[in-house]
């Protein structure tokens, strides 16, 4: 059956407690992981986690190097690291299990707040999911980086940034505008679609009962792969967009 998101109404607005909870949890896990990695920083004798973290840094540096010029894209290293860590951890968190509460008699509460049940008598609330399996979350990430790319393009590369809307000819402006709008949409919805589909698929396989255990194993393995790939793709495209907008290459 359909799992509802645990939503409370605050001043007429719907607050998704599961999304809030998972966003905060993912952020905390990312931050704690990063802090653990740099707990015993050492130049000559790095620990395992430090090594891993440095590998991630190198990895993101290479992404930036592939997408743009690393020397000028260096300032976005922290952004790329935050993105890839947050998205990867978010993608992984939704995989292993789910927490579902059942509500009967048409109402349920959380810390004294009434959960929004859409008028149903019975409902199952899913408390655990990937934050990236929520279109609002992925679009928030996508719009954040796209806005950053536009701001940086306007600040550092104004002439070319403004000109590129009218290239190769001025009447291409509407097409360029559509492309500009499509960028955040594809960026956010690609991530959302992949992760959400993965979780829906896990739900479907769970419905098969014990027969589905091998399929579940395979699908979870595949989801790990997809989650890693999507985190990489998101970071890569972020750097490509920022590079396109703000770093003008001389040979173009």
């Amino acid at each position, binding site marked *: 059956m359909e799992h509802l*998101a645990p*939503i409370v109404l*605050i001043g007429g*607005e*719907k*607050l*998704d407690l599961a*999304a*809030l909870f998972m*966003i*905060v949890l993912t*952020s905390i896990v*990312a*931050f704690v992981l*990063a*802090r653990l*990695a*740099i707990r015993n*920083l*050492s*130049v*000559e004798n*790095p620990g395992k986690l*430090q090594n891993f*973290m*440095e590998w991630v*840094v190198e990895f993101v540096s290479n992404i930036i190097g592939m997408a743009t010029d690393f020397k000028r894209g260096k300032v976005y*290293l*922290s*952004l790329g*690291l*935050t993105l890839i*860590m*947050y998205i990867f951890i978010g993608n992984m968190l939704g995989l292993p299990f789910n927490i579902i509460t059942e509500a009967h008699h048409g109402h349920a509460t959380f810390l004294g707040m009434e959960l929004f049940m859409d008028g149903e008598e019975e409902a199952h609330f899913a408390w655990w999911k990937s*934050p990236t399996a*929520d*279109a*609002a*979350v992925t*679009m*928030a*990430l996508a*719009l*954040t980086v796209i806005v950053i790319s536009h701001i940086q393009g306007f600040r550092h590369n104004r002439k070319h940034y403004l000109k590129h809307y009218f290239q190769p000819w001025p009447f291409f402006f509407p097409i360029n505008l559509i492309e500009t709008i499509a960028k955040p949409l594809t960026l956010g919805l690609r991530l959302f679609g992949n992760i*959400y589909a993965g979780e829906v698929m896990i739900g479907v396989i769970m419905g098969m009962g014990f027969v589905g255990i091998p399929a579940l194993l395979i699908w979870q393995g595949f989801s790990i792969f997809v989650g890693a790939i999507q985190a990489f793709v998101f970071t890569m495209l972020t750097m490509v967009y920022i590079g396109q907008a703000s770093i003008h290459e001389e040979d173009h």
Partner: protein
Amino acid sequence: MSFNWISFVIQVVAFGILYLLLSKFAFGPLFGIMEKRRQLVKDQIDGAEKSRTDAERYLEEQKQALQQARKEAYDIIELAKSTGSKQADDIVEAARSEANRLKDEAVREIESEKNKAIASVKAQVSGLSVLIASKIIEKQVDEKAQSELVDKYLQEVGTKS
């Protein structure tokens, strides 16, 4: 699946906060350490390169010093050899001239001895002859014979004139 604007705003804010926290408390120190390591590796490579060139230079210097020493030793030997032969020549020359001088001196001495001997012999011979003559004369010439001889000579003088 509805689009939840509250989640959207929460995510934007959460991402902003996460970015700031990570940059400040995690990536900043990490980048610093990585930069330090890069510097360390660079320094060590530079140091190794420097020691290598130093070693090469020292080796070259040592080679040259060895060459120099070898050359000096050779020169010294050569010098000693030539000095030795020269000294030998000098000694032989000096001995030869000394010998010549001694010989000449001896010859001169012999000559003068001979002359002296001859002179003394001559003197003795004349003395002896006078002595012998006086002895002979002393024995043969007496008054009678003398007066006879004188008479004879007077007579002869008288007749011849």
